[in-house]
């Protein structure tokens, strides 16, 4: 895959960034010829697996498993799901989860709810009943009707299980475990068709799956599978009907949450540790609530208020629990649950980048880190890739335990940046990091560091600020902020990085995003309704030809 990465290299950054915007005279608001990418094999994420099981079997069905660490690629786990394999540990977990589900739904007191038939003799195999079961749940689990060969294979599995275990329902469990550990379930396997013009695109069921996981973070429902079966997803109007339906469902919020959970790298909370002597308020509840706080703020701003994405960086409206109130040093009257509130102006706090979920996550266990925070601002919100530090960095200048002469992080990093090899990247990372230095390594406000006044002023690519709240304004006004979101949303939707030949398509997305006043649901709708969303790349020379035609 040909990808274009925006490495932050001093002196060339702005020219690289600004060079992405103009590829010809085509109307930016009309979609260019689709380019597409390869069909993918994408592993279900943990949240998708849980949601899928809940949608197929019921939300009360327990899934007790962790499927192994996710791979983050190009800033998103959603992209990594198309690149990672399955470890033996993960395979065991899939098997364990499947057995748990099978035991639960086929328990004597519960199985009538899931079966439309029953064997005359429990100890004997009932082929008709087994076939009904395999066809019904096979289609739901594989997200498409099973082939005759697949039906025969899993019915035979039920038969063998029944024979060995002397119990028809034990055989059904055996067959269901087989279905749930099959690649067709644990992976989203995309298949390709050609349309009437010979353009390669996803087949109808793959379209249904891509649409469903993008807009609901779960498996296609009955209506979507029906639309796929009836060919409605092969017409723009048919797709539009389904997109409208899915976006108006309650599950759409889950998709928005899934995207931002991925974009904001909340998986890193699994490894987050804080020094309890320095940050006694930090615990697992704070960690969980911090993520939920930001997700609630996002869904409130983007969905409930139907607001501008860029306002996420300036909004003082948020939601708190009492556990978070200790960190934010704000009263939270409601003892249990969430309370809608607003950061006071004098708190100096505005925007999701001043939430504990960002400040605490991108800090060291015992102190804040302008460098980590600055790098995260660049990578998470501006899609600017920061190179890893060189291997021979001399940290002695900033690790002086008697650091009184350099009380603030700005002082220490100034000393550190005397090394030329470090200065280049730090000039890019540190300004946004310094802007957040009024928040300690967990996220509580501080005016002083080691007795010295903290200077949170700086400039973000020409946008000056003097305090954290002004930094939020700069971030919201940065030209890359909405562009980055559009790019990440598209990557999230298709499960891969963008290719070079999709430049025009990205411009189209960003132009539409702007036209819609940076409303995220409209951006997702634009992606879902675009021809490029379902397009599958032809051979490379054909891609180049298509791209040239677009420009």
């Amino acid at each position, binding site marked *: 895959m040909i990808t274009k990465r925006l490495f932050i290299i001093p002196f060339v950054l702005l020219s690289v960034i600004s060079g992405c915007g103009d590829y010809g005279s085509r109307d930016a608001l009309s979609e260019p010829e689709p380019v597409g990418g390869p069909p993918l094999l994408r592993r279900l994420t943990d949240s998708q697996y849980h949601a899928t099981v809940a949608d197929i079997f019921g939300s009360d069905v327990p899934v007790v498993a962790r499927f192994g660490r996710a791979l983050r690629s190009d800033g998103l786990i959603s992209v990594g799901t198309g690149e990672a394999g399955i470890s033996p540990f993960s395979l065991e977990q899939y098997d364990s989860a499947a057995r748990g589900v099978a035991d639960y739904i086929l328990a004597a007191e519960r199985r009538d709810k899931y079966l439309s038939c029953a064997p005359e003799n429990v100890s004997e195999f009932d082929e008709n009943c087994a076939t009904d079961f395999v066809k019904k749940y096979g289609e739901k689990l594989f997200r498409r009707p099973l082939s005759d060969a697949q039906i025969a294979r899993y019915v035979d599995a039920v038969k063998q299980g029944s024979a060995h275990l002397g119990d028809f329902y034990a055989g059904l469990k055996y067959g269901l475990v087989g279905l749930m550990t099959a690649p067709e379930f644990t992976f989203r396997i995309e298949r390709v068709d050609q349309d009437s013009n010979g353009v390669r695109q996803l087949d109808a069921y793959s379209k249904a799956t891509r649409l469903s996981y993008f807009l609901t973070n779960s498996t296609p429902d009955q209506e979507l599978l029906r639309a796929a079966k009836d060919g409605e997803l092969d017409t723009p109007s048919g797709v539009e009907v389904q997109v409208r339906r899915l976006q108006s469902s309650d599950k759409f919020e889950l998709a928005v949450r899934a995207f931002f959970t991925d974009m904001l790298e909340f998986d890193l909370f699994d490894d987050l540790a804080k020094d309890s002597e320095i940050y006694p308020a930090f615990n697992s509840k704070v960690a969980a609530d911090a993520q939920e706080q930001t997700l609630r703020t996002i869904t409130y701003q983007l969905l409930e208020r139907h607001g501008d994405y860029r306002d996420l960086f300036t909004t003082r409206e948020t939601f708190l629990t009492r*556990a978070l109130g*200790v960190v934010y040093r704000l009263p939270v*009257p409601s*003892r249990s649950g969430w309370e809608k509130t607003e950061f006071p102006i*004098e708190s100096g706090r505005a925007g999701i980048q001043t939430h504990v979920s960002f400040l605490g996550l991108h800090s060291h266990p015992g102190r804040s880190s302008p460098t980590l925070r600055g790098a995260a601002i660049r990578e998470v919100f501006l899609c600017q890739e920061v190179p890893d530090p060189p291997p021979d960095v001399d940290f002695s200048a900033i690790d002086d335990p008697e650091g009184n002469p350099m009380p603030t992080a700005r002082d220490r990093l100034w000393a550190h940046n005397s090394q030329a090899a470090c200065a280049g990247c730090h000039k890019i990372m540190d300004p946004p990091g310094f802007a957040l230095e009024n928040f300690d390594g967990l996220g509580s*406000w501080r005016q002083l560091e080691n007795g010295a*006044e903290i200077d949170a002023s700086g400039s973000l690519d020409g946008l000056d600020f003097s305090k954290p709240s002004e930094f939020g304004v700069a971030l919201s006004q940065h030209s890359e902020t909405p562009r980055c979101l559009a790019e990440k949303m598209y990557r999230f939707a298709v499960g891969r990085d963008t290719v070079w030949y999709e430049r025009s398509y990205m411009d189209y997305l960003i132009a539409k995003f702007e036209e819609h006043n940076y409303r995220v649901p409209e951006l997702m709708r634009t992606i879902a309704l675009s021809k490029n969303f379902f397009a599958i790349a032809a051979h490379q020379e054909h891609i180049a030809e298509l791209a040239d035609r677009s420009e």
Partner: protein
Amino acid sequence: MNKTFIFILSLCAPLTWADAAIQNGTLGFVVSEFAYALGPDAEETGACPDGLARNLQEIYILESGAKRRQNESEAKFEKRLQAAAKALGTAENGQDLCQNPEAGSPDPYFKTVQGSGFVVEGIDLDGKNSPEDFNDQAGSNGVDNQFYRTVGCSRSFQSTGQSNGFKIEMLAGSWGIVFELSNVDDIYNDEHVDVTISANADPIQLSAARVPLAFATYAKDQSADFRGSTTGRIVAGVLTTDPVDVRFHSVVNSMKLERPLLDARLQASFSDDGSLTGILAGYTPVEALYDVQYGYRNAMAVDGQLAPLALRQGSANGAAHVLGHTCHGVYHALYKNADARPDPQTGKFTAISTQYRFSAIPAFIVDIETESANSGLKQSREYGSDY
């Protein structure tokens, strides 16, 4: 006025804990340390010349022939001790003396502090220098702390004893105390502040190391019985409040009790770290103090009903044995040392000066109904004694 205050602080000085703690001129605190304010151990003062108080078995063993007999097994000896203690702990009319301490006579083996010429924690409550008063740290007389006089010769109230560790239940979230200071113009000097001393309706929030966390939010107990509103002043960073009756919750062996304090007042200092440290002092009705600390006669179960007699009686007798006192002994000693609230008919004092030392940390105090486990404690008022 209040908003102006915050603004001026922001301009004139680096932000401090007060900036975070003060909300519209209001400062909140949750008590994080709480114990009786006492004097030195008996061996330091020599104030217990006849030794420490004894429990029933220790009293019995003083009798002639009570010691372990030749050829008597340890188990039999223990059984004899228990039987003797039970007999001594039963009134002539057959009543249990922990549940009915008035049925017993004063216990000569319940020793109390003699003299007063030494330093004891606490403040002057009555403005008088009485012979019973102790000295304060500055060396002046006038500290009213008759509770210390009563328990200062009990081994469980020595510094290594167990009786002054009742904050454990507070840290477990069973009860708590919150202070709210309002109309605060200056945390170092303010001639008038309003102060509310309330029972905490919420469990205290702790770190993983079980250290109370600053800036948590707590609700005041919704019952007016558990709130005391008064006025006070801050002079050179020391808060002093005017007397007000207050009442707190307490929990022993999962039984709910009440800890009232009449004419209670605070004398406490603000620290640079935002904490408030000092003394909460007043007078406790003897009957109430006996119940919350020794007898549990009116203790409530979690369902709001009077706790089972076996639990109340067993807890009181067990505590007396382990902690080294007799129920009737301490009951009569509390009355003997009582120094306030004379009975209109008999003139006999019915309340005893009681002082607590505390630390409190910044908190946000709100006044709402909560679903707190502690909110149920107020039900006990319907069954408890009205002191």
